[in-house]
């Protein structure tokens, strides 16, 4: 494990932890703009988090410690993932060979505990949501690994920081198809893993159609705040994977970080636009989208093998 920590990595991690909820605000404002509404304040999620932190939590008598552990462990896992991800040309706060597996399974752990917490409540809705979440993430996971495998192959590095250090303008010049295909996969995975349209609808109130939202219906107060905040950090970490490819950021530390943050904001707006111009997929069709996303990366991997 490389233990030297650069100032830029620390600042990047700090930015991730602070600005993550802003991404959600940007998505919502973009959607509101498309719908002809003014929309909620940009910093609404911050206000919500502050409000939830002041509240007490209510626990169902049927739930046990698993239900309470979920939000805390989930948030911790998301923060670890944010520490692993390289940003703006600088390596991640933590890095070692094979950390990309840890990165992927941080989200796996987060999901595992959310699902257990949902099943702990014994509600039929939450059980349905859990089964959907597990089904779709089982398809999103290979897609993500195929994308990372293509990058590993191209840059011949086994850590996330190594991979992204190896992505530069030269790679864009020599194999743009590879990067575009990988970005395509990562966008699909980003939408699926962060419960955005077309896979899930974060705004719906209809329990029967929900995937992620329904699993956290029974959480309240600070626990729910942890979940919302953890979700925002997860969105940031996964978006950082994409922005690291789009803006390789070998422009020096400050320019790199700045362009990275700008790219993140643009990505959030793109997510908002995607959500505005299309309806949610029928649940039966979601696997097709995810397998299609995985296929893109499979092609990318084949390009690197040739």
């Amino acid at each position: 494990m490389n233990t030297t920590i650069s100032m830029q990595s620390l600042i990047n991690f700090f930015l991730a932890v602070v600005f993550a909820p802003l991404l959600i605000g940007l998505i919502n404002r973009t959607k509101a703009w498309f719908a002809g509404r003014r929309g909620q304040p940009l910093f609404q999620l911050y206000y919500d988090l502050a409000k939830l932190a002041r509240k007490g939590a209510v626990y169902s008598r049927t739930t046990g410690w698993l239900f309470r552990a979920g939000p805390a462990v989930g948030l911790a896992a998301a923060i670890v993932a944010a520490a692993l991800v390289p940003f703006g040309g600088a390596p991640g706060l933590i890095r070692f060979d094979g950390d990309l597996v840890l990165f992927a399974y941080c989200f796996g752990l987060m999901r595992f505990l959310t699902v257990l917490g949902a099943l702990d409540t014994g509600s039929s809705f939450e059980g349905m949501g859990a089964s959907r979440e597990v089904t779709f993430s089982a398809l999103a996971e290979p897609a993500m690994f195929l994308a990372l495998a293509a990058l590993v192959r191209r840059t011949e590095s086994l850590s996330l920081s190594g991979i992204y250090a190896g992505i530069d303008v030269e790679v864009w010049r020599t194999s743009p198809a590879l990067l575009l295909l990988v970005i395509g996969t990562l966008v699909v995975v980003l939408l699926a893993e962060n419960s955005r349209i077309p896979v899930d609808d974060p705004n719906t109130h209809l329990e029967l159609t929900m995937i992620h939202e329904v699993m956290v219906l029974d959480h309240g107060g600070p626990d729910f705040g942890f979940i919302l905040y953890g979700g925002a950090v997860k969105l940031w970490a996964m978006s950082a994977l994409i922005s690291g490819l789009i803006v390789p950021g070998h422009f020096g530390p400050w320019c790199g970080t700045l362009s990275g943050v700008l790219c993140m904001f643009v990505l959030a707006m793109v997510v908002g636009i995607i959500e505005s111009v299309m309806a949610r997929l029928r649940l039966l069709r979601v696997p097709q989208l995810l397998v299609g996303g995985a296929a893109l990366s499979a092609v990318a991997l084949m390009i690197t093998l040739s």
Partner: protein
Amino acid sequence: MSLLDDFHVKNGQKTGLSGIPTVRFDEFSRVVTESVRAGHRLVALFGMPRSAVSGIDSEPAEVLRLFAVLAHEAVGALHILGTGLFQATYPAITPACTQAHMFEREIAEQWGVVPEGHPWLKPVRFHMSHVPGRDAWGRTSRAEIAPGGCDFFRVEGEEVHEVAVGPVHAGIIEPGHFRFQCHGEQVLHLEIALGYQHRGVEPALVGGPDKRTIHYFQTLAGDTTVGHTLAYCEAVEALADCRVPARAHALRGIALELERLANHTGDLGALAGDVGYLPTASYCGRLRGDFLNMTALLCGSRFGRGLLQPGGVAFDVDDALVAELRRRLDLTLRDVEQATDLLWNTSSVRARFENTGHVPPEIAEALGLVGVAARACGLNRDVRHDFPSGIYRFAHIPVSTAETGDVFARSLVRWLEIQRSATFIREQLASLPSGPVSARCGGLAPNSVAVTLVEGWRGEICHVAITDGTGRFARYKIVDPSFHNWTGLAMAMRNQQISDFPLCNKSFNLSYCGFDL
């Protein structure tokens, strides 16, 4: 069958109670069954206690008098048939005539008589029988009755699970309980239990009309204020032989179509919202408000409360108001067109709407579906066309139908009706008859009956008013379109994805309180 041919009435026509053909029950059952098989539709089937019946011969042993109202769309005629029950049980009509299933459950609940052989005899609204001491389920106290407290159809087996939704829902909607039998994501069966909003409107109307009566109709189903109030006014006017001025007819038609425009627009927006398509959802939400505001221009109430009254309407319009209405209608309709164009032109939306919640035409026919849900299955069924009353006798609105019977068809029918209602309103505003807007409406004829049908925005509203010897309501039967159509929603969900239920539900958009009465 000749029994029906001999006697028929028009929509909104008064007839003497003694003139109604009354037959023995087996004959009654046979005629109802055979005429439904021959293309009639059971519009209403209801009971009336012997104590309330006056002006006709009835034997003291009679337990309950039953009336059936049958309609034939192609002929445009309504038939009323009566019979007496002499025991607290009778052989159910439902096994041979599916359209009677909910009516017979309702009769059992209201009057404590048991239709023997009814395949699924459950309470409808979970209230005590109107006849003290006689209950179809042998319940003796209010405490034994809880809404939703009844048997539900169950599917057992590997990977089969039950999902119960409601009565409290996540959105700001009315209460209703939905019980799904699922195999994974697939719905095998849906059963709907309502009655949470039962207020006892029908018994409260007995002895009327009085000052309170019209308010019951204005709030019977809050989004169908004009529809139900119109049916009530037409019933009272028929019984009082009141001639409504032409200008009032036109204004009533405008109000009814504005109600349709507002609700259909809101529904299209809500359908878009349910599939997560925000632009149309937001625009239509606003435009619905614009249509409601046009109703408010007419009478001061966005829902049209206080506009209609027996004899005519309470508010006249002047030229400036007509011009303003036409201006707003043009502007709003243009926006609705743009918002729905977005909907039809987005392939991901169409992919969600098409083949979701399909109701085969034979099922729609067997259940006697009405309104948008029926027309979406290709059934040519519209009161404004088949049994026109008021302004619709002079101004015809083409019936809008679709063929596929799915969510797409139901939204398409809404959009077609929006266009045709707007055309109708434009024509009416351009050629409003002059004269008064209200006529004096006197007392009601004694021992008479009037059936009124109105095509509310959801579908056929049926009111049957029966007066006693003093010209007071002895029985007032209300059939909201939702009464027919809730079962249609349950059938539409068969073999569908449970995640598509909210979308299917919204495409029917039925009334809970209109059903619960």
